[in-house]
């Protein structure tokens, strides 16, 4: 990030206005009613991606770090969660924790390497590290290579909730994703979050004010990786599958797309973006490779004329924070 004039368009206000409360209540109500109208598996998929995009947005929107390799945490968490649930017969809650912890550890390693360079190099390094781990996933016995880990048991959460029932599974996913959403909101509005935003706006100045920006960046990176891992772990349980698709670079690109469409640096943008892109992919599945072309076209259009994204544009029109 060079000067304020060149920084991406993002809201500077604190997101603690009543509009956030209203929007959150509306989101909860919509998501609670949705499974009675829409196919729950689709909703769970969209929710997992919404969390993934929120985790990614924490980094790009609030610290200004562009990670082009977030599939690494999403995918490897989903592998470890699936492996723990299937081969070790772990209780699903524990398996999700194993997946999330894996992502956090990978985040510490990759993050401390990547923050050694700034700007455009940071993006290339995260991408290269993710690709390295993709090749590793291709070979490692744990991942079952091309087949992936299939038939992952959903099991009983805390030995009580039977997750094989789609509605119960949906309830659990919804609660976890909403909790993570609130957690991200708390991070952004904490003193820690304010420092992150200061780094985004002007890293040199933050350093001169005495902040060890590298530490802040690393903590934000690990939080983002862990939350992406939580999303990946949930997805492994929902689809009972962990596969190479989840660690491939196209997945890293997809999460960028969702966040961009919804609105970089907005609270609700990534959620809206994720639902939109997942719905689009569902709808366009029969058109095969055209999905790739359409995704690419959305990227181009967003960058050229729609940099605020849907929620960013809406917030700007209504003059509220969202």
């Amino acid at each position, binding site marked *: 990030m060079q000067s304020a004039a*060149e920084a991406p368009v993002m809201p500077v206000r604190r997101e603690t206005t009543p509009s956030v409360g209203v929007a959150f209540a509306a989101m909860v109500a919509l998501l609670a009613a949705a499974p009675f109208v829409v196919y729950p598996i689709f909703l769970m998929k969209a929710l997992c991606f919404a969390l993934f995009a929120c985790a990614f947005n924490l980094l790009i929107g609030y610290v200004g770090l562009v990670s082009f390799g977030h599939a690494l945490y999403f995918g490897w968490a989903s592998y470890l969660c699936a492996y723990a649930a299937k081969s070790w017969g772990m209780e699903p809650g524990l398996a999700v924790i194993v997946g999330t912890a894996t992502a956090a550890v990978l985040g510490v390693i990759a993050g401390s390497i990547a923050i050694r360079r700034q700007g455009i190099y940071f993006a290339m390094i995260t991408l*290269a590290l993710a690709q390295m781990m993709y090749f590793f996933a291709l070979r490692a016995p744990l991942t079952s290579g091309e087949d992936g880990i299939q038939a992952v048991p959903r099991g009983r959460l805390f030995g009580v909730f039977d997750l094989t029932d789609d509605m119960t599974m949906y309830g659990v996913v919804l609660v976890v994703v909403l909790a993570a959403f609130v957690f991200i909101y708390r991070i952004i509005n904490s003193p820690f979050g304010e420092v992150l935003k200061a780094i985004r706006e002007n890293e040199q100045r933050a350093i001169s004010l005495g902040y060890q920006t590298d530490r802040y960046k690393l903590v934000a990176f690990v939080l983002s990786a862990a939350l992406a891992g939580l999303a990946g772990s949930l997805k492994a349980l929902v689809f009972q599958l962990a596969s190479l698709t989840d660690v491939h*670079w196209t997945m890293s690109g997809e999460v*960028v797309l969702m966040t961009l469409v919804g609105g970089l640096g907005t609270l609700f943008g990534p959620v809206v973006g994720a639902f939109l892109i997942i719905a689009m992919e569902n709808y366009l599945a029969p058109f095969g490779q*055209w999905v790739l*072309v359409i995704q690419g076209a959305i990227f181009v259009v967003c960058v050229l004329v729609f940099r605020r994204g849907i929620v960013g544009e809406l917030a700007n029109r209504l003059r509220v924070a969202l």
Partner: protein
Amino acid sequence: MFEIFGIPSQALFGQLLLGLINGSFYALLSLGLAVIFGMLNIINFTHGAQYMMGAFVAYMLLQYLGLNYWAALVIVPILVGATGIAIERLFLKRLQKLDHLYGLILTFGLALIIEGLFRNYYGSSGQPYAMPESLRGGRNLGFMFLPNYRAWVIVFSLTVCLATWFAIERTRLGSYLRAATENPTLVRAFGINVPRMVTLTYGFGVGLAALAGVMAAPIYNVSPQMGSDLIIVVFAVVVIGGMGSIMGAIITGFVLGIVEGLTKVFFPEASSTVIFVIMVIVLLIRPAGMFGRSA
């Protein structure tokens, strides 16, 4: 026939040669990325797709118009370079004042569009491209068999790389280019058309990628995804070399190709990841890259 470290010389030199070939592609592509980054301050994510376009346009020229490899070697970089000029004029020009990240995302989107279009028409499987008649066969050097085409690729790409280096570092045009990289406003004040220079630079970088694509066509199958896997490796090469130096990009490209080739001989499991591992080590020891000044 003799052995080195328990490896038959034939296998060792064979892989070394393959490494050099890959190295020439790494060098050509990272050279193009460095030239574009210097002028436009954009990481051209479309570079892989443009390399793929080079190979495909060569294939199409042969298939539909009967134009052979040598004609393709001249025509393809111009054609694909022209599409690059169009991209710069239509899209990249508008991003000059924005954060780096938008250039990266836009070119990523363009790469998806191009790859998707080619997949639609040609599927995911590769199309073979016949080797030019005059470069078939090879010669026995005593310690190894050297296919003529591979020797040609190495010599030609090395020539192109060095010519580019000479043009940028040693000619008048190159000095304008370097000056415009440092201070575009001042150079404009001297009456030099900097925006046109930026456009042509992008076209030239894209042309280099397309040229690499034409040379790759007879070695690898021509397929829509040939570029996307390669570009990520080239990014790692660029991180290792640092984008500040033209010669640095060339040397890093060739050296890493050779290292990758040797890894295939001694530790084949690691051959697909060795460049990334080297990138990590370089970042830990010399964060600015081997030839880079501070980022």
